């Protein structure tokens, strides 16, 4: 181990210091949504305004008369976070202010019910960063399937049984749809890679125009795993190719987080109760496992995830070096 040459006090100054969301909120231990909110606001800083869709994040942060938010925050209804954000941004523009507007929604509020508002906001080019924390089902109402739920996953409305092996349909490719709006910047990220999340938030914050971050955020309750393993499981989603980390600029693939040694999807699926029916001695289960492996292989192929480069280290410095300097700092 080499010695640290910078005094700790100085090192601390390099750490993100601003916290947009305070401790004491009511999220479950290991909640990916809470972590998303923390990482996003750490990187965005205090000069922001948040529009939050209905969902877990809204509920566990603001039980009246308490609020965990240290930034101006507003919740209207389920499906309009993007439109509320568009209104806030128009107001900032009209008032000649530069406060950045961030919209926050879960996968239900983004992929499904809020999809139209999101598309409209992106198409009109509002200077809004839309962040989707994706826990892959309607967790706030008790784990119902959404169009983001992965294929074959069990939810309370896609239960396995004699006739079914969990969700029959595929996870919607939201980033591709978002990118089809020709927005300057869209990316996927995972709470398992906090520096990567912060970096992508900063990158999006620097763009004057609509940007989109799709953040994989485990839900211990809905996925059926120990909250202490959230980060490990989120990391496995990336390492198996089930959740590729990519960046798109103006709709074109700009960068990916490489996987040097992709792991089998079963490593990711097995620790989660929502996939337990796939590990029974059942021919359909084996078929679905093959199907899921094929999806992961497909992701690795189309995004070119198999890295000849060394694995991306989840540090700011590694990314800066990879990008050839402080381009986005």
């Amino acid at each position, binding site marked *: 181990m080499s010695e640290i040459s910078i005094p700790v006090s100085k090192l601390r100054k390099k750490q993100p210091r601003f916290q947009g969301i305070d401790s004491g909120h009511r999220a479950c231990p290991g909640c990916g949504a809470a972590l998303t909110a923390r990482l996003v606001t750490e990187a965005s800083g205090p000069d922001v305004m948040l529009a939050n869709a209905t969902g877990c994040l809204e509920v566990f*942060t603001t039980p009246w008369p308490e609020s965990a938010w240290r930034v*101006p925050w*507003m919740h209207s209804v389920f499906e309009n976070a993007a*439109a*509320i954000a568009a*209104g*806030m941004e*128009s107001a900032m523009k009209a008032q000649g202010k530069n406060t950045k507007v961030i919209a926050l929604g879960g996968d239900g509020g983004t992929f499904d019910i809020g999809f139209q508002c999101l598309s409209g906001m992106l198409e009109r080019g509002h200077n809004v960063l839309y962040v989707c924390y994706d826990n892959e089902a309607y967790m706030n109402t008790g784990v119902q399937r959404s169009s983001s739920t992965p294929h074959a996953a069990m939810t309370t409305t896609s239960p396995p049984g004699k006739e079914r092996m969990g969700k029959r349909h595929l996870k919607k490719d939201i980033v591709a749809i978002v990118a089809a709006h020709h927005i300057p910047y869209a990316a996927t990220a995972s709470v398992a890679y906090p520096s990567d999340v912060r970096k992508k938030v900063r990158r999006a914050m620097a763009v004057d125009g609509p940007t989109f971050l799709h953040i994989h955020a485990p839900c211990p309750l809905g996925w059926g795993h120990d909250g202490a393993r959230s980060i490990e499981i989120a990391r496995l989603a990336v390492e198996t190719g089930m959740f590729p980390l990519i960046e798109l600029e103006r709709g074109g693939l700009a960068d990916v987080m490489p996987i040097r040694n992709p792991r089998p999807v079963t490593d990711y699926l097995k620790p989660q109760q929502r996939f337990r029916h796939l590990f029974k001695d059942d021919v359909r289960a084996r078929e679905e496992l093959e199907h899921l492996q094929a999806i992961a292989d497909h992701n690795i192929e189309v995004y070119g995830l198999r890295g000849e480069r060394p694995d991306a280290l989840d540090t700011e410095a590694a990314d800066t070096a990879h990008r050839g300097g402080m381009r986005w700092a």
Partner: protein
Amino acid sequence: MPEALEGSQAIARAVALCRPHVVSAYPITPQTHIVENISKLVADGKLECEFVSVESEFSAASVALGAAAAGSRAYTASSSQGILLMSEVLYDIAGLRIPLVLTCANRAVSAPLSIWNDHQDSMAVRDAGWIQLYCMSNQEAVDTTIQAYRIAERTELPVMVCVDGFTLTHTLEPIDIPDQAQVDGYLPPFKFARALDPMNPMSIGTLVAPEYFTEVREVHHRALLKSVDEIESAARDWAELSGRDTAGLLEVYGSPDARVGMIAIGSAVGTLLDAMDRYPELGPVKLIRLRCFRPFPFEALKAACAGLSEVVVLERAFSPGSGGIVATEVRAALSELPEMPRVHGYAMGLGGRDIPLETYGRALEVVGREPPERFAVLDLRPEQIPAEEL
């Protein structure tokens, strides 16, 4: 100096005089001309504002809400299906106590599809917690739009200005457009105390548990009841400034000591007034126009109806399976009088059916009928209904 203007054009000019920061809208007949005119004012550099052409009325209301919450004066307009698509957000705007103004160019609601005028749209959202003002003429629509911003911003309640689709929005009338200095003197710049601000972060729209929810609703109800004072003073002050008479909660015409009263809403009152002049032989009638439907003007209505023995309510919407909406509320209010008049309820002019002068006489035929008419459609053509449906 009056100018010949289409209703929508005049309303757009009135909105511009209020200096909105953000206008969001989605096209729907018969509202479209209003926002077309506003976007032209923006394009011509006569109005400096963010004009957001959204992808649905749902977003139109949401953008206006987000903008107002962020401290900007906001405006939107819609009709019919658009109002219903907005309805979830309309409740939210009111519940969050966000001041903004919406013009409802009144139109029937599907099905069957009709693009023509009645009041089913704004009546469908009467419980959303907004102030609702109904205009009789385009001059009143102009004056009411300006007053609406003052009322909204002083009460922190949203105001819906209802104007009859086509009958008002598409009709050319000589209209006095106030000058900018007049409006600026009447309407101070928008300062929203709860505006979202990074220097003073606040959380708006939190989850409220049963231990507080009831009280929040009660406070909202009281705010609406109290807003009658602001509605009246807004009209009084504007009348003084503009030199034009403007109604407050309601307006009373005709014979002050008549025993028969007639209550109506919106532009139909103009027709009824003409009919009253045309047919004096039908006897003395006190015609009452409800300009304000929310808050319901209980006291003003009771005062106006004291001494009446019969009241005929004419309205342009109804609740299927129940009957008149306005009539039901009028009955509730008048039941508090020591001698309650007999109240007859009629719907008319649905889905754009013309309201001719003869309507006045037909409505008065019910006077004295026993039992009173609980509810009927006055201008029904029974011959157009299949026999098995009758």
